[in-house]
């Protein structure tokens, strides 16, 4: 009676902080050209590994310093929001559609459909996901589209398991029966009755999945399997930074911070949504 109020406010804070960072990312991605102080691709061997602006030896205008080819780190970070967000949205959508569909089929029909799909999930869970994604991208050839396909192919199980469980629960409830009695077809019941009820769970998972997709893209970039051009991604910037971390730590620090905040933002946003939808869930 007295307790829940401040607790609720704390939950809202993480929801809004997450949303604010994600909004900032979208803003950066859309207006990357206007926001970047330099050309993201321009190399200048006279300006190699410049430190960030507040350190001695910095060059004015290069706020976060430059990398080993003299490229402006700030501009590269801003442009790298594009592949990160594209992967987050497209790969999560694909994983979500595919996984939810299979989950609905398994949960709603049960029987053989359920047995086959569940076995497939078991097999998938026996793979180390990072290794599988690297393998997939190697097979498909390094490109952003391959990264997206790999993430969708691997992470559909997350949606499938949750939606299947939820659909099974919903199937046992009265309103599905009454819909059947009223003469609605199975497809219609699934679309009209079951889907709206599993939607909150899907939305939460989707938000969490976007964070995962950003990380997987970074990992694949890190092992040099994402975008094959010079265009920046946080992962490839991190890979370069890791190599020269003892000489120029800032090359690693700034993209890493971005990635860190982005992952936290998506997960806090997702957790905040979860609490919004279902206050009983922790």
């Amino acid at each position, binding site marked *: 009676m007295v307790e829940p109020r401040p607790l609720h406010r704390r939950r809202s804070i993480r929801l809004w902080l997450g949303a604010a960072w994600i909004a900032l990312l979208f803003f950066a991605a859309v207006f990357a050209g206007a926001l970047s102080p330099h050309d993201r691709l321009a190399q200048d061997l006279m300006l190699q590994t410049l430190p960030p602006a507040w350190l001695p030896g910095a060059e004015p205008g290069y706020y976060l310093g430059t990398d080993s080819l003299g490229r402006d780190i700030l501009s590269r970070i801003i442009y790298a929001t594009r592949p990160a967000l594209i992967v987050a949205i497209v790969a999560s959508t694909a994983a979500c559609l595919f996984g939810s569909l299979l989950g609905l089929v398994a949960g709603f029909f049960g029987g053989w459909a359920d047995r086959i799909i569940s076995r497939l999930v078991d097999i998938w869970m026996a793979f180390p996901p*990072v*290794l599988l994604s690297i393998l997939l991208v190697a097979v498909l050839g390094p490109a952003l589209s391959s990264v997206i396909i790999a993430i969708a192919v691997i992470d559909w199980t997350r949606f499938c398991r949750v939606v299947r469980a939820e659909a099974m629960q919903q199937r046992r409830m009265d309103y599905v029966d009454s819909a059947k009695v009223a003469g609605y077809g199975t497809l219609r019941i699934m679309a009209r009755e079951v889907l709206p009820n599993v939607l909150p769970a899907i939305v939460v998972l989707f938000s969490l999945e976007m964070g995962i997709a950003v990380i997987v893209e970074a990992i694949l970039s890190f092992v040099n399997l994402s975008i094959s051009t010079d265009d920046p991604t946080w992962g490839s910037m991190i890979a370069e930074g890791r190599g020269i971390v003892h000489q120029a*730590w800032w090359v690693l620090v700034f993209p890493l911070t971005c990635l860190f905040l982005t992952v936290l933002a998506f997960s806090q946003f997702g957790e905040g949504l979860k609490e919004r939808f279902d206050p009983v869930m922790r």
Partner: protein
Amino acid sequence: MRLSALIIRLISLVVTFFGVAVVVFVLVRVAPGDPIAMMIGPGASPQDIADLRALYGLDKSIPLQFLIWLGHVVRGDFGTSISLRESVTEVVFGRLPATLELAFLALAIAVVIGGFMAILAARWRGTATEAGVDLFNGIALSVPDFLWGLTFILLFGVAIPIFDISGRVTPTLELPFVTNFFLIESIVRLRFDLTLDLLGHMLMPAMALALPLAAVISQILKTSLKEVMHQDYALIARTKGFSETYVLLHEALRNAVTPSLTVIGVQFTFLIGGTVIVERLFSYEGLGNLAIDAVINRDLPLIQGIVLLFAVIFVGVNLAVDLCYVALNPKLRHG
């Protein structure tokens, strides 16, 4: 778990393995790029290439290749690595100990940190201590091992350089080991100087792997402990004159651990999966690092061998968890 349930479990494991084998085989065969072309120089004659294809069995039809491969796998023969020109079995089992040592060190760290935090939060439940533990759990859970690894590289490799962040052991050291379980062997041989050097290299990647698992353990065990502390037998123990801490450790802990075990087991397989990228990050010469090299070199037999081995480990961990569950639960042991 009754015997029949165990048998069903084992059969489903075999089915899972078969599924994994099919998926791996299909994936790898679909890969564009000719592995043979990559291994010989431009001067090779067509005859040389054909000979090599026959040697690796690549001249047969794909279903036939699969059956032949499966037959070998069942006998423990994973073929010959194309890039290393050694038996895959030998290469893989040469690297496996490094990964196992890293994974179990990480597990130990996670259990210690997670267990400690859970007990702390349960002992002082409803206070700032619990809120602090919740905050740690929230952050450690949502940030994956890859990012923790990079963070540790910056913090303890560069800012305060107290740990090594590359490799498994200092390369200039003379190693007297006969097995590849360096850490265990250094302890057995009482060469604690080497143990320290190994731990100095392993601690950062192990911490990176351990943090998310520690948060899971802390979260689940805390919830479970708080529940158990409200049970009647915990109340009875308090009436006997025992302190809150004693009741927590002697009455509640064991009963709280059992239900957490399954989740922790699943999470441990995630940790093992994480070794792939974390080993890469720290240039640690384990199975995961080898796997990425194998993918980049399109070393088909090696990839197949490694992925299958990972699958064995995953499923083995799950089975071990089931057995632990039975061993810890007197009701199941006798009933």
